[in-house]
């Protein structure tokens, strides 16, 4: 069965990719993911705040105490070897590239132009085969308009596009007023692909302590549906590479994603829950399903269920909403 796919211009033997997760911090786990057959691996994000913050942390918590007391010119060794978190990130890209033969996709997360974007170039220099730009922005100010947000995002994409020669994918959240238009602008600004969607750290509330607590839950298969809809809508209109991220837990899930238009299927929660070897299971499931259903190749299924080609596009559109609500009422 020919499962090959082209994602961001990378020729992959199959679409199943290990998505952004803490797995990449451990070379042993990386090796296991590769051994289990992942066709590529996505780094977790290097955050704009992290890049800025790491640079400032030493200044704020150490240098501020230096040279203020006769007996103690400083309180920590002044090591030339001192490296920032981002440097460590780049080093890990190098290590992974050395360790496993599959492509590595770096990931940057930020929303404004600035010196941190220099790291885009650094990830390429460190050997990343592609870059995933995570444009997750949570607007909390009434002074920021939707236009502002989108313009800023497009600026970032253009800036990154200029600074690297490797392919750049943009990872989005589902919350845009007009995702199709924005997606088309992203592509026009130089994006080589779109990843749907970001999953967020959610804020929970500790009611006893009156504290906000951050949590990150692993994805559930139900989350795939939102992605299938938008893949179907976007892939029918905006020509670019698509990856699905979030909610893929079985080979069948992967099939559906491809049918909706995905070139690449990122798997994270399934690997975190069951171990890196789960990648192998998903791959066999994908292959078996296609074989059982007598497909010639994966390519044959790609986009078959997008907005243009699916038998009843209303399923992806507003009408679907009415029907679902009504069916629910009568059950």
């Amino acid at each position, binding site marked *: 069965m020919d499962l090959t796919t082209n994602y961001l211009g990378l020729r992959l033997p199959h679409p199943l990719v290990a998505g952004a997760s803490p797995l990449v911090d451990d070379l042993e786990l990386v090796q296991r993911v590769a051994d289990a057959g992942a066709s590529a691996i996505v780094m977790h994000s290097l955050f704009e705040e992290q890049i800025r913050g*790491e640079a400032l942390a030493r200044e704020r918590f150490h240098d501020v105490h230096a*040279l203020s007391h*006769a007996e103690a010119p400083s*309180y*920590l060794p002044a*090591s030339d070897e001192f490296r920032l978190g981002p440097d460590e990130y780049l080093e890990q890209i190098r290590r992974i590239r050395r360790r496993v033969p599959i492509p590595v996709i770096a990931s940057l997360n930020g929303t404004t132009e600035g010196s941190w974007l220099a790291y885009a170039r650094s990830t390429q220099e460190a050997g990343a085969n592609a870059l995933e730009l995570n444009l997750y922005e949570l607007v909390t100010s009434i002074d920021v308009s939707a236009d502002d947000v989108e313009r800023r995002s497009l600026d970032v994409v253009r800036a990154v596009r200029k600074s690297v020669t490797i392919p750049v994918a943009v990872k989005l959240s589902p919350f845009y007023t007009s995702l199709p238009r924005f997606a088309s602008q992203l592509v026009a600004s130089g994006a080589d692909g779109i990843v749907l969607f970001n999953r967020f750290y959610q804020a929970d509330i500790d009611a006893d302590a009156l504290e906000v607590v951050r949590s990150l839950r692993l994805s559930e298969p139900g989350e795939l549906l939102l992605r299938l809809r938008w893949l179907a809508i976007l892939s029918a209109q905006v020509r670019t590479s698509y990856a699905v991220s979030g909610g893929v837990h079985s080979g069948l899930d992967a099939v559906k994603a491809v049918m909706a238009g995905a070139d690449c299927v990122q798997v994270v929660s399934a690997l975190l829950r069951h171990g890196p070897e789960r990648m192998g299971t998903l791959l066999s499931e994908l292959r078996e399903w296609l074989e059982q259903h007598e497909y010639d190749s994966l390519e044959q299924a790609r986009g078959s269920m997008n907005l243009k080609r699916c038998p009843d596009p209303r399923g992806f559109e507003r009408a679907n909403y009415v029907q679902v609500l009504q069916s629910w009422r009568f059950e």
Partner: protein
Amino acid sequence: MRGKQVTLDGNEAVAHVAHRSSEVIAIYPITPSSSMGELSDEWSAQGRKNLWGQVPEVIEMQSEAGAAGAVHGALQAGSLATTFTASQGLLLMIPNMYKIAGELTPFVMHVAARTLATHALSIFGDHSDVMACRQTGFALLCSGSVQEAHDFAAIAHAATLKARVPFLHFFDGFRTSHEVAKVELVDDDSLRALYDEGAIHAHRARALSPDHPVLRGSAQNPDTFFQAREACNPFHDAVAGHVEAAFGQFAELVGRRYGLCDYVGHPQAERVLVMMGSGAETAQETVEHLVAKGEKVGLVKVRLYRPFPLARFVAALPPSTRAIAVLDRTKEPGAVGEPLYLDVVTALRELRDAGETKLDPRVVGGRYGLSSKEFTPAMVKAVLDELTVARPRNHFTVGIVDDVTHRSLAWDKSFDIESPDVVRAMFWGLGSDGTVGANKNSIKIIGEGTELFAQGYFVYDSKKSGSITISHLRFGPRPIRSSYLVTSANFVACHMFGFLERYDVLAGAAPGATVLLNSPYAPEKLWDELPRPVQQEILTKRLKLWTIDAALVANESGMRGRINTVMQTCFFAISGVLPREKAIGAIKAAIQKTYGKKGQELVERNFAAVDAALAHLHEVPVPGTVTSKLELLPPVSKDAPDFVQRVTGAMIAGHGDDLPVSAFPPDGTWPVGTSRYEKRNIAAEIPVWDTKLCIQCNKCALFCPHAAIRAKVFEPAALEHAPGTYKSSDVKAGEFAGSKFTIQVAPEDCTGCGLCVAVCPAKDKSNPRHKALDMATQAPLLAAERENYEFFLGLAEPPREKVKLDNKGTQLLEPLFEYSGACAGCGETPYLKLLTQVFGDRTVIANATGCSSIYGGNLPTTPYTTNRDGRGPAWANSLFEDNAEFGLGIRLGIDALRSESLALTKAHAGVLGEELVAAIEACEGRDDAEIAAQRERVKLVRERLRGSKERPAQRLLQIADYLVRKSVWLVGGDGWAYDIGFGGLDHVISQGRDVNILVLDTEVYSNTGGQASKSTPRGAAAKFAANGKSLGKKDLALMAMSYGHVYVARVAMGAKDAQTVKALLEAESYRGPSLVIAYSHCIAHGYDMAFGPEQQKLAVTSGTWPLYRYDPRRVAAGEAPLVLDSGTPTGAIGAYMRNETRFRMVEQQDPARFKAMLETTQAEIRARWDVLQRLAEKPHVQEPAKS
């Protein structure tokens, strides 16, 4: 000039040579020598090699005695070794120095000469430590400047190889060790050429080796020791020749020429000074100035002090010499004179008797510069002037006013020899604003980027929070010999506007000087905001005034609080040292170099600050008249006692130098309770209390490092006279129901650290961001809160007997440790404060040297204070290494007096009454009630014995207070308890006596700047463990428990304050030795101290800091001795470690290594937990010791 020119300080200049010239370096931190060891460690950690291609082995020892022993061994093994030390550390090395010299071993130690502790400790410079080593057999070589320190380090390493006599190379602590100057480095080839390979081979051949075994360190008897001791004479006789040869070779290789004793001055000088060290630089400058004016004066700079080169010394004197003044930077009470004076007198006499000279000058000796006391050209002139009188005073002092024994020479303060082509600048900064760093950077820019010579010296006060720094910079066309502070600056910058109200900032400004003020006021409004004396000074001296709102510029550039770059830019813009464009370019290049490694973010923010600075810099129009009525604030409040007004006040105002000898207690005894008069007013924000939300848990008071927020209960009637804004609420419950309750901030003593708000658990249910305590801007609250605090202090204290001694109740007790100069957010001081609240009125504290002795006892003020009865902790610091023994001695002394007082009481049973005597005898002083009752009984004793003329009764009257139990606390940090003082601590706890030991464990040498101790945990970076400590923390608690009779507790107030209080109470009540090890967060850990308590929680839950109490008394009750106060470790050690820079930087250096260390630590935590659980479960078989 042939070598590379750089700007660096004396310590680095020396380390540059020592590291390249050594194979083994054994070190131990001590101010002001620490950075030589730190640099060596860092360089070796980075793989820097010595001259022979090897990375020197650097090892930190447990004390200087240990370092000396280690180098002795390394030398015996045939390696080239060195060490660095000062002061008390040097004293600890003396025994080994005799051995190393006695065995004729080539070796160099580098000493940043520092004052020895006598009536007080001083970290500053003089020769008292070095002079205590004259008799060891070491050669003593003295350098007087940063360049000389670099050069003589090489000379010492070269000469010792040839001479086989070990060298102590010394230079003045701080004045030379910390002065930044432009020097030329000696390159590797020159060093190699200086060091005789054959001599190195010979040293190796003498090594202890089983391949050619010998025996050293034998014991000899009367028959042979004396002769054998004399056998070394030829070697010592030859030292001067070897040094002279090395100087000669050095001159040929490098171009700089030195002699054993160098003369400068008039060839026919009649009056000659003899000196060593940095003072000789000032003397040379002055002598040259006077000679140019036609005076026949001169100076002999003694370089090789031991063996004293008699012939060379006398030969250095011009034949015209009529009178000599020998200046010693040390004091030897009871001696005929100080050492150099005695040597000079003896040398002249010996050579005259031998017929080798006809010189017969009058010789007088004097003391100068003790503890880095300023030594200025005016003082040099005063000494030379004294030599013109017929009978010059001998054994004089210069630099102080001695109005007790009248030995001091007067000097003319207006005498100034600063050259007009030297730019002199002074910068008043806050420790945290980066002023010193920026100035060091400016020196580099000018010193390394231009032909100009540069010098920088930095003066710090003794506070660890809100500290003031004054930078003294000089730039000029010739090497700068002025080893004294700038007093006539052509540029003065004040980086903190508030200083102008408190200090005479412009006193150092020369007429016509440029003044730069960082102020929040617009240029046209600034003048009226200046205090009257400042306006007057500006007008009188016709100063040019500039201003910038640096805080605003820094904030807008994203560099909150760090105004260094802004002010540095302004300095270059208006001082004219460099062309403006060139200077800006150089600043930016320096920023790129400094911050580039840390990420472009900081670079860009600093660049923005530079650009914005120029746009915000304005010249201030100076009107012709004084308009202000604002006077300088008094240094202490007007109600302070006379001594505090006269002495402490002068010290606080920066006028300590002007105090005469008579102002001081002759024995180092100082009054307590003085920090309350020093209103430092350093908090930008202070906490504001919401009475409605407060749950009266008192955590704010418990955690406040400065006793600047307090809780009190009082009778409602007291509110009658309360100020209008005074807040109180009803006591919620418990023993004080019906009373009123107040949480009150001390607005001028608060440091604004925010710990109180961080620990406050009481949130507004509708708006949880608002808590019972919120930080608010201090300025608008100051007047009202000052009055409220005054009123609060005046309220009666609650009856102690009624207060429940738990985490909440103890905070209703008056702290007898308040407003220390500790760091904002300090993790140590809350424990000490708590200790004084509970036991303060009956406690004697023996305090090991370290942070706690500095914030506890560094003048001008002390935080230890008294209650209304005049009782409070009595406090003393002996040394670093001996604190446990010192404390035990205090216990023994008190016990002796107690048993004598008891015996005398019993002997007076007739007069006192059997009942009273029995009650006195039975009282154990277990709590406040018993103590109070016993004090009443003592009162009765005094009453009943009053008027008795019998000697036993008199004796009892004198010592009757000892009938009341005294609590003895031995306090110190982990450097003391785990390392240098461990032997003593171990012995003391083994003795079973009733002492309480409180270890304030920051897991690092905090006071000397973050060197690793045996308490430093695995995976933490510290100095001397630059790559992260690879081995685990010593378990001091477990070691102490192994005795069975020691009460041991591990506490972390931030994790479980109730357990801390319980442990202190149990420790104090136990009549044997008690050891309480207290987790103390510290700025050396590298995070925001407001999160200290949170980190403590993580330390405890992760299991790295388990909480427990081991009480031998429980064994008698058939229980397990150990009670675990924290739960099974959660395993979240990574989360704890990654919050702190000390661990983070190790992970960033080498993540794989860090991960491995993390895993080992995790395994260790589990293993240790198993041990603790066993101790907590099984009843112990050992009998508790009787105390």
